């Protein structure tokens, strides 16, 4: 296990380093001049040159890269070209919104999709089983922004039970107000996420229900519930956990559409703003942090699978015993 952990950590560091190189180069390949976002109509050529000098984009690329790498190595993500705010603290202030948003939506999606998916499989021959499966299929086709706008129209504009968007200026100082602002966005993401999760839970459950080991367990005298609990859940969770990992990672940055509909100051909107302003330090910082998050989530999903399924813990073929 220790060997496995060390290998994963080394893999993480190498991937992050490669990410810094790729990110840096790809951004420089994009057409556009970061100095432009600082200037307005009326700027003189001297002012444009001065702006480039100010943010350092007039220096040779290798020099810019080494500067950035040095900063990253010391856990400093630099300062925004445009706002001059430290990138690190800007990202932290966005994570305060994005992390709760993602985790709450994720939790709600599990709460919805596991029972519904199980029911859709277990009662697949009943009419409501079929309906549940059908509804989740339909849900896959619903665009996130559309669902978000629909919820705003119903709950914010018509029923007036929820805010239409925004987030408190003082963040979580008043947790009730902050949670209140997250209700509709969380619901939006959770519903869309559930639609696909339900399908995975359903098919994983169907596999288990048809399996020989479950039939054997029943034949040996286990009740359905206890057979399901001892053998079924464990087996069905393995594929579901890997999907959960992917869904969680996708939502982390994919929440940008929801953030826009609900005017939430999350990580995704910081990235979009950075891109529109060619704010390299911000884009690099956000992408690096998200790369890290995605790698960690993947690692955790992997680890969870190994804990659930002993077969994965077995040494690799050919490995030293």
């Amino acid at each position, binding site marked *: 296990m220790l060997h496995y952990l060390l290998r994963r950590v080394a893999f993480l560091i190498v991937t992050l380093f490669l990410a810094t190189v790729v990110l840096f180069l790809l951004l420089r390949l994009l057409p*556009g001049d970061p100095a432009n976002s600082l200037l307005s109509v009326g700027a003189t050529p001297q002012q444009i040159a001065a702006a480039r000098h100010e943010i350092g984009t007039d220096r040779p690329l290798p020099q810019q890269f080494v500067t950035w790498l040095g900063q990253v190595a010391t856990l400093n993500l630099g300062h925004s070209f445009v706002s001059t705010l430290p990138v690190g603290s800007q990202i932290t202030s966005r994570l305060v919104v994005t992390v709760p948003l993602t985790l709450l939506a994720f939790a709600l999606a599990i709460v919805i999709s596991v029972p519904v998916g199980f029911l859709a499989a277990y009662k697949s021959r009943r009419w409501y089983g079929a309906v549940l499966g059908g509804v989740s299929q*339909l849900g896959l086709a619903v665009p996130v922004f559309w669902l978000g706008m629909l919820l705003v129209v119903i*709950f*914010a504009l018509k029923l007036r039970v929820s805010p239409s968007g925004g987030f408190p*200026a003082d963040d979580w100082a008043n947790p009730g107000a902050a949670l209140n602002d997250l209700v509709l966005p969380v619901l939006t993401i959770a519903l869309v996420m559930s639609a696909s999760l339900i399908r995975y839970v359903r098919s994983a459950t169907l596999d288990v229900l048809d399996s020989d080991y479950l039939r054997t367990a029943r034949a040996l005298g286990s009740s359905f519930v206890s057979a399901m609990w001892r053998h079924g859940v464990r087996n069905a969770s393995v594929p579901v956990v890997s999907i959960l990992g992917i869904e969680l990672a996708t939502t982390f940055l994919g929440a940008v559409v929801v953030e*826009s509909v609900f005017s939430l*100051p999350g990580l995704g909107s910081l990235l979009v703003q950075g891109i529109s302003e060619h704010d390299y330090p911000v884009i690099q910082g956000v992408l690096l942090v998200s790369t890290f998050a995605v790698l960690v989530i993947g690692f955790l999903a992997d680890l969870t699978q190994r804990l659930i399924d002993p077969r994965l813990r077995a040494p690799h073929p050919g490995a030293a015993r």
Partner: protein
Amino acid sequence: MNKKAVALFGAAMATVLALAACGTNANGGSSTGGTDTNATINVGSLYEPQNLDDTAGGGQGVTEALNGNVYESLFKLNDDGSVSNLLATGYQVSSDGLTYTIHLRTGVKFHSGKALTSADVKYSIQKVLAPNSQSARKSSFTAVKDITTPDDSTVVVTLTSRSISFVYNLSYVWIFNDQAKNLTTSEDGTGPYQVGTWKRGSTLTLKRFAGYWGTPATNAEVVFHYFTDATALNNALLTNAVDVVTSEQSPDALSQFTSNKNYKVNNGHSTTKLLLAFNDRVAPFNNTLVRKAITSAIDNKKLLQSIWGNYGTLIGSMVPPTDPWYEDLTNVNPYNVSLAKQELTQAGYPNGFTFTLDTPNYDPHPTAATFIKAELAKVGITVNINIITADQWYTKVYQNHDFVATMQEHVNDRDVVWYGDPTFYWGYNNPQVTEWVKQAEQSTTTAQQTALLKKVNEQIAKDAASDWLYLYPQIVVANTDLSGYPINGLNSQFYVYDIKKS
């Protein structure tokens, strides 16, 4: 995919989950009657400051939020376009017009507690002129030769040539504390508010400054809420999350406010003009007749109506009604398709021609470009619409002049003078106009300046230097609980200190 089925599914899911959202209440609107001097005013806007320093690329948003509210200038540009004293109590001009002696108000304190002195004023003017200044107004101050401070409350500025707009231009120069640090992320001004917190991407909070030299603000706190989506902004107004929207940019959404007695829709003056700007250096637009033909071939009235309904104004030139040298020039190149065809034939293009229109990718440019394409097709001209980003516009059009025609909104007042600069992106080069603009700036009286700039305006209209499609409306929508907010959006400023909530 069946749309009805999708809607049904959505509605069903939403109803099922209504419980989850129950028990929450977003309506904070409690009315106590009378004016609440401790009120918090929530302002909704689409223009977030990029940073807090207007000489470091803060953009339109920093002017809106901080100008006059957090930072003050020597002189103030009023909502009606006039200029009055603010941190200055008065000034004298020498008879040759080259020396301005400006007297400062005493008892003015910065938010940090330091008293205002002439050194701060000198520092602030130099900040605009500095090599690394990104101020859009830098070129207005090229005549400044020297700034001296004979005593703490007097500033003497000497110019190399007369500059009748000098005092007006000073209304754009924020007075900073000369000792202040980190002005892009924090502030030290003399205005009625201090910046409380700035959460980039979300909110900027202004708090009433207890040590303000003048009449204190009528509210305790103003929170600017920033939106990237106009619909989200309107929803916030409808749910009382914001009390006022500084500049409505979603004309289609206005009906939900005009038909609701809880809101007031104010139709004020703006200085934002939508231009179809030709590159006057290159064929075929180096030919005045071609430019006139295009101007006559496009029905600006119909364009304005299709974008803004009954709002907005046709101006026929670069000068909006709030500038002193305004006159109605909409009939110089009237909408007349047969005239346009005649002019094209005269210019040697009886069968029209094809050109590329570099169109910024944000509203209203793509819509207007499509309209122009359809209009010009009627006179045989084919338009290729080339959509570009704001960033590409700056590099390709503004800096490299690599374009034939483009569209752009020009937000500043008194910007007709740019037609006197042949190096400007649109390349209009009429030595007579350049001379008039120069003379106007060196005028001894405003009457003389006005007369000369009127001539400039008439000439550029005659030459169809650009096609001035229309002047934007400035629409402020507010909750009826609110009063005292500015309704004109001159240079995007938005004074909040007189806003009252009942």
